[in-house]
């Protein structure tokens, strides 16, 4: 029904109807109780608006057809009516109250982040997401504590820049490491950011929350169906704002436990691109990058390893002598310059403008030392 109605709305613009089959006209299918409430709120209000619109402009177009000089209509001279004016002030007010009531209930539900089963901290970086499964309350405490992963765009650069390359099915909405969550559990997401404001948004969950550097905000969802859900950063955060998707894989609880177990062991065996973030404390601000002594290894571990550790996005992998020899031959000054100014997929200073040139250079020297 709802889809039918949206199609009807779409036909208002004749051109739209031709493509209505291929493209979605309404909100994404809701997969959480909150998203369902949002969906029905939107439908309710949309329909009230459509009815009022048709009524008011039905009147207007009737007047345009009948009360025109060319058909000989003579102008009446009335210009006020207190009764009518009071009526059309009060009726909209009552309709608005009718809309506000269900909306208020949804707002209160959305804000209720208490008693989560699992807490995940999502940190926005220019331009990727970091997810940390933190110690919290609830039935899943301990299962995944301490798992931290970085989640970057997995779409190859040539799909973006080369029109001849076929784009994949999930073009721009695919990542290397998905956030994995169990179904039917209340997941609390804490958001923060490392540099500028980002926003964590998964449309099918009805969840959108700004990630603000130096502050922690929270939101929650409980997804009911296993599957892969895709969203994007929703706050302009610089040049690659359009290239930091969010992918959530919802799985059965057993599968989640197995994943967490495996991920924990894997994390011990080969150091994952760990993110240096302070322990979660919702009452204090997350510390910004503190100025310390120049330590190439520290910078490398905290930032560069995210890409160079695994060789992501074309970055030469640390320790890969083949990839590094030609680069080392360019001389340390050139390498440092490229790292400071950015080169190809690499943003300036690896995406952290708070770093000093000396810190970046030290990190480059550290990597060169490991790769000779």
């Amino acid at each position, binding site marked *: 029904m709802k889809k039918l109605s949206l199609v009807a709305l779409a036909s208002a613009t004749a*051109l739209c109807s031709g*493509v209505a089959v291929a*493209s*979605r006209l*309404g909100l994404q299918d809701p997969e959480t109780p909150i*998203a369902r409430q*949002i969906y029905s709120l939107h439908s309710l*209000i949309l329909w009230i*608006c459509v009815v*009022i*619109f048709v009524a*008011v402009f039905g009147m*207007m177009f009737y*007047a*345009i057809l009948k*009360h*025109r*000089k060319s058909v000989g*209509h003579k*102008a*009446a*001279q009335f*210009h*006020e009516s207190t009764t*009518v*004016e009071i009526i*059309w*002030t009060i009726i*909209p*007010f009552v309709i*608005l109250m009718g809309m*506000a009531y269900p*909306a208020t209930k949804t*707002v*209160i539900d959305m804000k209720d982040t208490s008693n989560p089963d699992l807490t995940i901290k999502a940190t926005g970086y220019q331009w990727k997401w970091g997810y940390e499964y933190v110690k919290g309350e609830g039935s899943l405490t301990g299962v995944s504590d301490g798992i931290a992963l970085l989640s970057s765009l997995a779409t190859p650069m040539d799909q973006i820049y080369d*029109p001849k390359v076929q*784009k994949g099915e999930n073009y*721009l909405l695919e990542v290397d490491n998905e956030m994995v969550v169990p179904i039917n559990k209340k997941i609390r997401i804490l*958001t923060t950011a490392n540099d*500028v*404001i980002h*926003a964590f*948004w998964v*449309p099918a969950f009805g969840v959108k*929350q*700004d990630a*603000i550097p130096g*502050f922690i*905000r929270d939101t929650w969802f409980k997804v009911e169906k296993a599957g892969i859900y895709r969203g994007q*950063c*929703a706050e*302009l955060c*610089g*040049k690659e*704002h*359009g*290239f930091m998707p969010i992918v959530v894989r919802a799985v059965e609880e057993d599968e989640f436990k197995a994943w967490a177990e495996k991920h924990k062991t894997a994390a011990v065996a080969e150091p994952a691109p760990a993110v240096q973030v302070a322990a979660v404390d919702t009452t204090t*601000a997350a510390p*910004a990058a503190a100025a310390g002594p120049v330590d190439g290894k520290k910078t490398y571990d905290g930032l560069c390893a995210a890409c160079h550790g695994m060789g992501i996005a074309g970055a030469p992998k640390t320790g890969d002598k083949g990839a590094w020899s030609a680069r080392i031959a360019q001389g340390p000054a050139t390498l440092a310059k490229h790292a400071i100014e950015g080169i190809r997929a690499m943003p300036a200073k690896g995406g952290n*403008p708070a770093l000093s040139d000396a810190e970046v250079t030290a990190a480059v020297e550290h990597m060169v030392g490991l790769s000779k």
Partner: protein
Amino acid sequence: MEAVHGHDHAHDHDHHHPTGITRWLTTTNHKDIGTMYLWFSFAMFISGGLLALGIRAELFQPGLQLWRPEFFNQLTTMHGLMMVFGAIMPAFVGFANWQIPLMIGASDMAFARMNNFSFWLLPPAALLLIASFFVPGGATGAGWTLYAPLSIQQGMGMDLAIFAVHIMGASSIMGSINIITTILNMRAPGMTLMKMPLFVWTWLITAYLLIAVMPVLAGAVTMLLTDRHFGTNFFNAAGGGDPVLYQHVFWFFGHPEVYIMILPAFGIVSQIIPAFARKPLFGYSSMVYATASIAILSFIVWAHHMFVTGMPAAGQLFFMYATMLIAVPTGVKVFNWVATMWKGSMTFETPMLFSVGFLFVFTMGGFTGLILAVTPVDIQLQDTYYVVAHFHYVLVAGSLFALFAGTYFWLPKWTGNMYSETLGKLHFWCSMIFFNITFFVMHFLGLAGMPRRIPDYSQQFADFNMIASIGAFGFGLSQLIFLVAVVKCIRGGEKAPANPWEGADTLEWTHLPSPAPYHSFETPPVVK
């Protein structure tokens, strides 16, 4: 331009002014200054429009074809800044300069020299904005809202934008002081406040809004400037500041700004609809009260732009209720306009077409605004193309269509010639159709989950983006029709009578010839 010269009127005897460029540099005549405002805003409209076409060209299909992502961000940012501060706002000030003295029977604006200064501040500000594309790092790409900390990261293009905003703010404040003083002190004898044409009323209220909020914007961008260069930490959590503070200050300016750009449009439409319905405006006093209510409410709704920053439930509810409340006075206005048309004797010359088009399409933007006011729905739609569709429905179909309507309505008075009705109607229908092709589909994109301000998108959004881009180029080209229509009208055409519109009854039509002489109402008319 010569059109403002009156050649056959008694008032013409003291018609002395320098010629050539010095006339325009030194003029204190409200008509000359109004003309300059209008041409300036048209130039900025075309510049901002070209940037928009750059955006739509890149979004024509998925993948990055034309621009690098950082340049794309510069395009969206500068498109917004130029259209808001360069095109829409100065255009309304241009109308105020031309029309307020004519409509209240005043000889000129109250502070004629300041009037000249407030216009001549604008070209340097525009040059700063345009020049910022050519400095190292390019123009600012932080979005027209210039949110910290992203704006702190930008190159020196950001500083140029900050200075441009400062200068344009100063210009707006001076313009507003002038408008308020003129309206309150220089009305013709007998013209009480409640006899003023509605356009004058809406500008009086708008001018107060401007004086209240432009300093707030100046404060916000000044804090950005000192955070960028002088080590302050207003918006830096590590130094005890708060990035969200910027948004509160910005939107305390930004929401009244929305009404600054639409209230004068309401005023223009409220002059035109009665004139072409040959019937007095329905509910004049409720129109005045509705305008004032909207202006007052506009100060307590700013945080509805910030529902996803994470505020307490009580905050979200307060701002949701207050925002929904604005639908009441706005509804009153729409009902009043329809009631004015009801049982009238309507004709549909270009000004009326644009006014009816305004009413129809602006109301759609009003309804999407109501949908966005509802916090849970807003959280889903914030920062998506739905919002882009919404504010273009109110700003393009609202403010811009009203500006077109007003231009066609008053061109005969300004130039002494009738415009070409054929060109005007062609302009209207092209604009109306291409506008909807461009922006209607953006509702679907936003609902389906396409974020705004992205240079590339996943393939599910490809069809509607292609339609929107085609519409945008059509809309852009349609504006050349407007240019041709206006230039033709200035150069000649059928001579306009003093009052070419049967139903127009304000002072400029009843007491002045067409074109309005260079100096008018040296002796104020008496209003009964």
